[in-house]
C-alpha cells in the first residue's frame, strides 16, 4: 500500500471486504484483501492478468467461497448466509459478466424481463414497458425481439448491462466491461456506467485492465498485484503514483517488477481460478 487512501461522500458502505483470502491447490491467489465501497461510489479494481481480480470478483458475487475473511454486503456477512438469505441480498446487486452471459435461448427483451418477472408481482404489460425503458437507456430499444446470437459483442454488453440494472440494484459489479470492444463502443459503455452511478446512486465495482476505460469510470481505484492491494486512491493520485508496479502498469512498460512472460504453470493456475464454485 502506498498510503493514498481517499474517502468521499457521506454514504454508508454498501460493500466491505475484510481479510479476504483464497488459494487454489496451495497457491495463494488472494492474500488478505481489505476494501470498502460506499453508495454511489465508482471503484475500479485493476491489475495485470493473473493478479486475482477475477477471483476477487467471484468471491464478491458469491461464485467462490473465500478460504478466510468476510464479504459484508449491506452490513451482512454474505458467505455466512444460507441460500435463501443470499438470494435476498442478490436482489440488491447486479452483475455484468465479461461475455455478457445472456441466456442464449431467450431474446434480449426476455433476458431483461427475467429478473422482473421472477422478483416482482408486476403485470406483464408493465414489465414490457420497463424492459423497453431499460433497453432504451442502453440504446437497444429496437433489439428487444432479437436473440443474443443475432446481435454484436457491444450490443450484448449493453443488453447485459440492461439486465443487470433491471431491478435497480444498489451495487453493480462489472467484469471487464470493455474487453474486446472497439474504442467508440467502449466510450459508450463507460458513459452508461458513469451515468447509472450518477443518476441512480448505484455503486460501481468494475474490474478491468484497460487503463483509458478505468480512468474514465473511476472515482477511486485499487491496484491488485500478487493477490494484494498495492495501491489505492483517486484516479489522479494513482496516475501520479511513483510506485514501480503502478507506474509500470499504467504506462504499459515491459521493463519493471511486473513480469511479462508467464510460465505454463502460472497459466494453468489462472485457468483453475473461478472453477471451484
Amino acid at each position, binding site marked *: 500500500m502506498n498510503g493514498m487512501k481517499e474517502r468521499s461522500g457521506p454514504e454508508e458502505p454498501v460493500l466491505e471486504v475484510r481479510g479476504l483470502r483464497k488459494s487454489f491447490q496451495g497457491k495463494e491467489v488472494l492474500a488478505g484483501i481489505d476494501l470498502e465501497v460506499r453508495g454511489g461510489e465508482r471503484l475500479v479494481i485493476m491489475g495485470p492478468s493473473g493478479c486475482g481480480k477475477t477471483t476477487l470478483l467471484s468471491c464478491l*458475487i*458469491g*461464485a467462490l467461497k473465500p478460504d478466510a475473511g468476510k464479504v459484508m454486503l449491506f452490513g451482512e456477512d454474505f458467505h455466512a448466509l444460507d441460500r435463501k438469505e443470499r*438470494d*435476498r441480498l*442478490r*436482489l440488491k*446487486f*447486479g*452483475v455484468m*459478466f*465479461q*461475455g455478457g*452471459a*445472456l*441466456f*442464449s*435461448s431467450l431474446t434480449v427483451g426476455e433476458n431483461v424481463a*427475467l*429478473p422482473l*418477472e*421472477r*422478483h416482482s408481482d408486476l403485470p406483464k404489460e408493465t414489465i414490457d414497458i420497463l424492459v423497453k425503458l431499460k433497453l432504451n437507456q442502453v440504446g437497444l430499444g429496437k433489439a428487444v425481439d432479437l436473440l443474443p446470437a443475432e446481435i454484436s459483442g457491444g450490443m450484448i454488453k449493453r443488453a447485459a448491462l440492461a*439486465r443487470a440494472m433491471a431491478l435497480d440494484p444498489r451495487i453493480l459489479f462489472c467484469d471487464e466491461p470493455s474487453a474486446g470492444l472497439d474504442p467508440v463502443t467502449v466510450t459508450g459503455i463507460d458513459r452508461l456506467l458513469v451515468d447509472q452511478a450518477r443518476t441512480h446512486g448505484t455503486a460501481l465495482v468494475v474490474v478491468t485492465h484497460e487503463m483509458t476505460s478505468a480512468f474514465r469510470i473511476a472515482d477511486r481505484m485499487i491496484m491488485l498485484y500478487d493477490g494484494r492491494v498495492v495501491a489505492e486512491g483517486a484516479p489522479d493520485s494513482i496516475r501520479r503514483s511513483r510506485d514501480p508496479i503502478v507506474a509500470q502498469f499504467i504506462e504499459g512498460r515491459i521493463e519493471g517488477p511486473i513480469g511479462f512472460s508467464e510460465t505454463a504453470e502460472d497459466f494453468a493456475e489462472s*485457468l483453475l481460478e473461478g*472453477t471451484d*464454485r
Partner: protein
Amino acid sequence: MKDSFFALLEDWGASLRFFLRTLSTLFLGGGRAWRFRIPLVLDQIRRTGVMSVPIVLLVAGLTGMILVLQTAYQLARFGQVELVASLVGVSVTRELGPLMTAIIVAGRVGAAFTAELGTMNVNREILAAETMAVDPVDFLVVPRFLALGITLPCLTTLANIAAILFAMIAGYGMYDIPYDTFLRVARQWIQTKDILHGIVKSFFFGLLITHVSCYTAFSLKGGASSVGIATMKAVVAGIVGILATDVIFTAVLG
C-alpha cells in the same frame, strides 16, 4: 487407484446431492414457482417429446419387423408361426419398447441437455441466473425433469404400438399371418401388468436420463472442449444407468 476410487465416491455423493436438490426444488417450490415452470415444461415437452416421435416410431417399427423376421422363421418350422404375435407383443411391451425408447432418448435428448446446459455453464449463464437470485435448478433442471418424466412413458407407448403394427405388417407380408389372427394372439398373451411394467420403468428412465445429463452439465469445468467430453460421458452413463435400472426392475418386479 485409491485417489480415483475416492474421486468416484465424491462424484457419486455430489450427484446424489444434486438429485436431492432437484427433488426439493420440485416439491418445495410454491404456487408462484409453477407459474414460471408450466410454460418451460410445455416447451421442453415439445422439444424432447414431440420432436422425438418420428425417430422413435421409425426405430420401433423397424425393430418390430426384425423381431418377426428373426423369430417367425424358426416358429414356422414347428407350424406355430402365429405365436410370433405373442413373442413380439410381450417382449416389446415389457422390455424392448421402454429400453429402446430410453436409449434413443438418452442419445438424442440427454446429449442435447448436456450440450446446451454445459455451454451455458461455460458461458457463465448458470452463474448469471444465480446472481439474479433465479435458482438455476428450478429454471433449467426441473422443467426438463418433469418434461422427460411425462414424455418418455408417452413415447414408449407410441413405440410399443409402432413395433406391434409394423410386426403385424411384416407377419402378413412375409408369412401370411392375417391381421386379426395376429391381434387375437397378441391380445391373449399381453397382460395389462406387462404394459404397466414397461410404462413405469420408462418414467424412471426419463428421470434418470435428465438427472445424468443435467448433473454432468452443471458439474463440468473448463472450456468448450469439456462440453464435448461431458456430452459423451452423459450419454454413456445414461445408457449404462438405463440398463442397470432395467436389471433391478426385472429382478424386483419379475
